[in-house]
């Protein structure tokens, strides 16, 4: 496919959700009218996100897989000439999978919301916010200008804040506030770092900066910039000990909010590391890599241990909170992979990123379904002393939950395995100049983390899926048709990515090598 078509596709992918968000606020056109205005606007959401998904798939099809390290479909026009800020968009092997993942998850969320609108204010605002969120996320993966990246990054916060604060469950106000507080503070620091890079190097263009590999920046500039930008991204990732907003946000958020938060928003943080910190401030990245790795490993263990504590009987653990903590652990693997500064580790990180989006997205959908049926996600109330017996009460839902758990614990043959394996392998042989001994320790601890991960997930399966079914227990509806429609793509992709990781790694590997300077 030629350049112009790709260019138009990419632009459309970024702009369409934003136009759709505006459109959601207008009266519905005659063709879309459903039973009532609510349904019309929800239908509008499905339509727009579906179109964006179709466009992003077209983009993936048209993408030249022979040259994934080259920016494709680029648009580059001057925006604020005085500051050298440009409207620069493009897609390469690193961003393409994330764009498709975002489009897919948002579409599935819109579809889910069409049938099961979360309780809260108007559907109109809900759809507009989801579309705004999608637009911002897609933009942050597509833009190649530091300032634009920052704008896109920030744009996502506001819709998420309202999704949690208005459509969430218990404690939503506090959770939403904490979310915005943490991420805004992180962003301020990140902005300073970005500005520092831009002014010292004389350009905000990410491609130019990445090609320079930090040659235009002094070592001290790189260190300060890497620290500032890294902190902002680390809040979002989230890195231990900056994670504590995440469990609250997830616990309070509606199902769709949780799915998007885990599946899409967290990815922006780790994407930023790979796209900005590693190539633009390589010296800074090298300086902080061992610390990042250490925090990542602590995150892995901390997340898993917190999950184990929540999963225990009598701990009154909340299932959503547990999966949120498990995200801290999984994102720890992503950060560890990045901190190895090797192609293996960074590829693993990008793979784990996508895998986590698929699997944790699925898990949040499933837990949402459990909540709808039982009215609670409290493990103790759910399972009592013997177990909730989901296998018996709703065998398909139980089977899917077990599938999600098994995928999440990193069974080879499913998506969760490769990212963690490659990250650990990267840590086993980190980039030159990094302390091998320290990284070996990190790797061993991370391997121990996989053991703990298996532990708590199996406890969850034991307590939720298994158990003796009461004769008087009310009959639960098994998986609805629309739920199947929303979940099947995630299950299928989890299996596909597990069996054929080359499909994804073939895209990321050349791009990662270019970003790391062909090492």
């Amino acid at each position: 496919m030629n350049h112009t078509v790709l260019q138009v596709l990419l632009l459309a992918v970024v702009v369409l959700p934003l136009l759709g968000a505006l459109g959601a606020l207008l009266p519905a056109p005659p063709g879309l009218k459903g039973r009532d205005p609510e349904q019309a606007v929800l239908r509008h959401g499905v339509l727009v996100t579906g179109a964006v998904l179709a466009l992003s798939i077209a983009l993936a099809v048209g993408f030249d897989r022979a040259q994934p390290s080259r920016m494709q479909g680029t648009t580059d026009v001057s925006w604020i000439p005085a500051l050298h800020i440009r409207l620069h968009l493009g897609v390469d092997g690193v961003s393409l999978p994330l764009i498709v993942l975002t489009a897919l998850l948002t579409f599935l969320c819109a579809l889910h919301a069409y049938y099961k609108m979360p309780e809260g204010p108007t559907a109109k605002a809900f759809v507009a916010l989801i579309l705004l969120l999608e637009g911002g996320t897609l933009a942050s993966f597509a833009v190649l200008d530091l300032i634009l990246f920052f704008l896109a990054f920030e744009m996502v916060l506001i819709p998420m804040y309202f999704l949690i604060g208005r459509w969430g469950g218990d404690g939503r106000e506090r959770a939403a506030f904490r979310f915005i507080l943490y991420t805004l503070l992180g962003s301020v620091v990140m902005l300073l770092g970005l500005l520092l890079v831009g002014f010292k190097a004389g350009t905000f263009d990410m491609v130019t900066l990445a090609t320079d590999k930090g040659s235009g920046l002094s070592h001290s500039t790189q260190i300060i910039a890497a620290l500032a930008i890294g902190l902002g991204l680390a809040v979002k990732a989230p890195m231990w000990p900056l994670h504590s907003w995440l469990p609250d946000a997830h616990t309070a958020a509606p199902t769709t909010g949780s799915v998007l938060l885990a599946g899409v928003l967290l990815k922006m943080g780790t994407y930023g590391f790979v796209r900005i910190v590693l190539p633009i401030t390589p010296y800074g990245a090298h300086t902080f890599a061992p610390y990042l790795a250490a925090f990542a490993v602590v995150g892995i263990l901390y997340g898993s241990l917190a999950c184990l504590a929540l999963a225990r009987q009598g701990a009154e653990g909340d299932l959503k909170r547990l999966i949120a903590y498990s995200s801290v652990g999984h994102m720890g693997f992503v950060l560890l992979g990045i901190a190895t500064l090797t192609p293996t580790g960074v590829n693993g990180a990008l793979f784990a990123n996508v895998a986590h989006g698929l699997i944790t997205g699925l898990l949040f959908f499933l837990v949402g379904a459990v909540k709808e049926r039982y009215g609670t996600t409290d493990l103790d109330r759910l399972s009592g002393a013997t177990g909730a017996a989901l296998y018996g009460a709703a065998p398909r839902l139980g089977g899917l939950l077990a599938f999600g758990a098994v995928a999440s614990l990193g069974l080879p043959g499913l998506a969760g395995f490769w990212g963690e394996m490659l990250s650990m392998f990267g840590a086993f042989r980190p980039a030159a100049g990094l302390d091998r001994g320290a990284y070996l320790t990190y790797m061993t601890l991370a391997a121990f983390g996989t053991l703990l991960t298996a532990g708590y997930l199996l406890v969850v399966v034991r307590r939720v899926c298994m158990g003796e079914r009461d004769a008087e227990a009310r009959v639960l509806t098994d998986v609805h048709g629309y739920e199947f429609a929303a979940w099947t793509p995630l299950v299928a992709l989890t299996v596909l990515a597990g069996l054929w990781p080359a499909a994804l790694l073939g895209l990321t590997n050349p791009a990662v090598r270019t970003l790391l300077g062909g090492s």
Partner: protein
Amino acid sequence: MDPLIGALVGAPLLGAGILLVGGRRLDRTGHWIGCLWAAVSFVIGVVLFADLLSRSPAQRTLTSHLFTWVPVAGFQADVGFQLDQLSMTFVLLITGVGTLIHIYSVGYMEHDENRRKFFGYLNLFLAAMLLLVLADNYLLLYVGWEGVGLASYLLIGFWQHKPSAATAAKKAFLVNRVGDMGLSIAIMVMFTTFGSFAFRPVFAHVGDVSQGRLTTIGLLLLLAACGKSAQVPLQSWLGDAMEGPTPVSALIHAATMVTAGVYLVVRSGAIFNAAPTAQLAVCVVGAVTLVFGAIVGCAKDDIKKALAGSTMSQIGYMMLAAGLGPIGYVFAIMHLVTHGFFKAGLFLGAGSVMHGMNDEVDMRRFGALRTYMPVTFVTFGLGYLAIIGFPGLSGYWSKDKIIEAAFAKGGTEGWTLGAVALVGAGITAFYMTRVMLMTFFGDKRWQPDAEGHEPHPHESPKIMTIPMSILAFGSVFAGGLFSINSAFLKWLQPVTGHSDGHSPVATWEITVATLVVLILGVGLAWQSYGRQAVPAVAPRGSLLTRAARRDLLQDDFNHVVLVRGGEHLTRSLVYLDHTVVDGAVNGTAAGVGGLSGRLRRLQNGFVRSYAVSMLGGTAVLVAATLLMRGV
């Protein structure tokens, strides 16, 4: 021929897919679909076997490269299969015994409403196990390795409504996971050392690598083998795994999956041969486990748990042999195959007994069953004679060879290992005779169960007894057939290598010694359980007996050391989270309380005000950049 290798794995995988996705509409035919796919892969196995036999011994290795798996710089992996004499042996064992057990399960699981799912899982197990033995590289082997672990988890917990089964499944997976960690790290060390995971390049370059590195790899592989094969110190899951349906115990926890550790060690022979320390560790693990399992087997009253102890012990024999290097590899595999026959047969026999006795497993409530279940009695009896090493039967040929090989290692090590193996043979005779006597001889001791149902022992249907008879046939003749003209040795030698070693003891002396301990063991058991009536309630027993009933305190050890320690750790972490981390966050939140008040005023819920605030934010941003530029 090469594409057939893939079909070998593909057939049961397809079956699993059909059964698990097909849903309730397959409930009435599902079990036959499962049997069909197992049989298809057995037929393919036989075709491939005939093909291998038609080639000269040097050309009996077929490879089949499927696709590139991971194309990352610094981590290349392919999906490829390798079929040689070693994997062929396993393929025939897995698909042959597997198919028989599928057929048996049709009868055994007849009244289970989830029978279709059961067969789906069994097919999944076959596919994963075949993948494990056919992989041409360690990474693919690892996928099969975890796949059988998953299948085992699903099948142990098949009756998940029983809390004991659910817990046992979890335990099996977790203990195995410890071993898997060893395997995954071994794979990493291997790749950094050799630049590849594939068997061929790795084994070709063993000579270029320091011994320390090889010892590391060997010990990590041993850790993996300990997990999967239930060897000390990772043995604790196997006894609990008996919570699964009996055909599962027969196929997975006796005949095939638990022997994967032995396969791993024998397959990595080139590495172990160059790492004597690791080899010795394998021998020690095997020797310790063979005694450990045997002692546990002596004390258990649950027929399946007694057999599980026996399985551990017999795999201990195989491990011991595998650790001996080229002296023992062939015999480890030969014992593995004969054990596959007789132990699967014994478990199916136990299942048949349970089937006739309202699922009773306590041997103290059996007795005199030989008249009620003649076929089961005869097939179980033949399996019994085979496992204790009755002259001429399968176990005699393979176990004697291992004892002989242990002595042939030479030196103090050889004497010690040989003596342990010899004593183990005596204990084996004791506990197996005990099982036999308590189950089939003496007076009948069964009683009505809690609901007042009197058991009516009866023979099982043909669909169960025919597989039992075929396995009994194998238990009797396999060992002898393998030993005619050293056929098995000649078949495996090109892959594993072989040397005779220098035994300080003559072969006939070992045979006599084995017979003596055999008679001693049987006699002792007869003394305690044949001549005297078996009490229906277990006597208190000696300290050792009581410890052995509790699996020699393995769970108590794990509980005190691992579980308690872990609980304290997590509790202190939770405390930390509530006080320190949250405290810090709340402090921050309070600090910006003033800001929050102002922020709240902006949250009025109208979309246009969000738009305004975004616009405002952008304005601030641009202003900031202008300001910075001015500076």
